[in-house]
């Protein structure tokens, strides 16, 4: 193993230009994928913010006792889908309406707006079918006059989310495949550059596993370095976007780590495939 590491590091020293080219190619392939990832991440965040606003509002009939509403609040709050539930009294509803519609504040008289129970849902329970089912469960309370959850709006949002997910998955997959092909070709060049060495290794009795090891280590290191460089490039791109275009979010540390690990895995897989194919042919 020590020898395999030494050979892998020597390969960097013996062919610095080729190694730099490999790492840069890997970095730019992953950078393109990373940029797409950033766009997808920010679209997802924006959709999530909108989704956070999905709520079910049950209007409480006039004259409903506090005991009945607080018991219902307890029941509804215990729903597994419930993120938060609260009672908006008539006074609070009026206050909010006057605040939100300032220029029409005179129109609203006391007691004109009903009290309501407002339920916000946990992520994963905001699709139209679930929202409709939960609304039906709340509707059974006697004191509920009317129930609203912006059905049309929730459906449109859900459709938009599905389209965004599908686009992200298909574009992401395309970018990933292109990255794997480019990286595979780059590593193949490195393998071909050392074809003579591989041939000599075989002649003197090295096993295929022994021959593969330095290439796998080299591919892993190149992938890792390429992944790190891609992360730096994506961060620079984000700084520029933040300054000149729009405030956007960067990957969190786990996503960053997964990106670098993906680079390492692509490097490893590319090397394994290239050297495997080469060994089969010679």
């Amino acid at each position, binding site marked *: 193993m*020590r*020898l395999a590491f030494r050979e892998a590091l020597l390969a960097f020293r*013996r062919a610095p230009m080729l190694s730099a080219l490999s790492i840069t190619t890997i970095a730019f392939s992953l950078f393109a994928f990373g940029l797409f990832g950033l766009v997808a991440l920010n679209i997802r965040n924006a959709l999530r913010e909108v989704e956070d606003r999905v709520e079910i509002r049950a209007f409480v009939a006039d004259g409903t006792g506090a005991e009945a509403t607080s018991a219902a609040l307890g029941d509804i709050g215990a729903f597994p889908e419930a993120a938060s539930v609260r009672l908006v009294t008539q006074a609070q509803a009026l206050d909010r309406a006057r605040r939100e519609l300032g220029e029409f504040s005179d129109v609203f008289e006391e007691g004109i707006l009903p009290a309501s129970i407002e339920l916000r849902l946990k992520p994963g329970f905001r699709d139209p079918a679930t929202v409709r089912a939960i609304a039906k469960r709340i509707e059974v309370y006697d004191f509920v006059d009317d129930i609203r959850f912006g059905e049309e709006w929730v459906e449109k949002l859900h459709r938009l989310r599905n389209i965004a997910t599908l686009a992200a998955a298909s574009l992401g997959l395309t970018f990933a495949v292109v990255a794997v092909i480019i990286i595979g070709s780059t590593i193949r060049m490195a393998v071909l550059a050392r074809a*003579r*060495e591989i*041939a*000599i*290794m*075989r*002649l*003197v*009795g*090295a*096993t*295929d596993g*022994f*021959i593969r090891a330095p290439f796998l280590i080299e591919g892993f290191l190149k992938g890792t370095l390429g992944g790190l460089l891609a992360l730096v490039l994506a961060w620079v791109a984000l700084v520029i976007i933040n300054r000149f275009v729009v405030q956007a979010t960067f990957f969190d540390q786990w996503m960053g780590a997964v990106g670098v690990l993906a680079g390492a895995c692509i490097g490893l897989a590319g090397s394994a495939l290239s050297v495997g194919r080469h060994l089969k042919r010679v």
Partner: protein
Amino acid sequence: MIRFSHVHKSFTRSGVALQDVSFQVNKGEFVFITGPSGAGKSTILKLCFFEELPTRGEVKVCGTSSVLYKPVEVPRLRRRLGIVFQDFRLLEDRSVEANVAFALEVTGTPAAQVSGRVSRLLTQVGLAAKATALPRELSGGEQQRVAIARALANDPVVLVADEPTGNLDERATRGIFQLFRDINASGTAVLMATHDLDLVRRSECRTIEVTRGQIVFDSAADGGMRPSLARPAVEVDE
């Protein structure tokens, strides 16, 4: 040690390379394989180290049969052989000692033993003083000596050499050949392909002549010297 039994070899593009080739090389023997270019000499050698496999028939080398072998046995077999080529096949960016050490390292020799064995091997081939030189700084004969040292690294029982003197001048050829004789004298069998008939005539070693993929003469079986190898008579103009 090496046994060819009715070996046929054909290639998809170039057609038949060997037809019904049978011979045996015994322990400690020195055998020349001669013949014109394209006769099948190199194919015979490639079959010896399982670089190629017979289309029909069986090649058995150091107990490994081309009919029954498993791929994992090939590296083990090659460690028991030393292989030398006309074009040396050295790693140009590594020193002489690194080239020899490479053969030891890739076959799992403990690191502590590598340096001592490399020195001994370079002394054996007469290159101890050039251990740190790069191959391009050496003459053709010296480069071939490095290749021989590398081939000897794992104490082979057979040395397989494909035109090892093909790129060398007469003096270097004599030196390399003497080295092969010394190696052979220490018990290692040598199977050497060459079209240097002078070398063959001088040596009086066993000679197998191959023409168009067939053995046309084997001094061990037929005795004496093949007429094609006999020195041509000098014609005197009257």
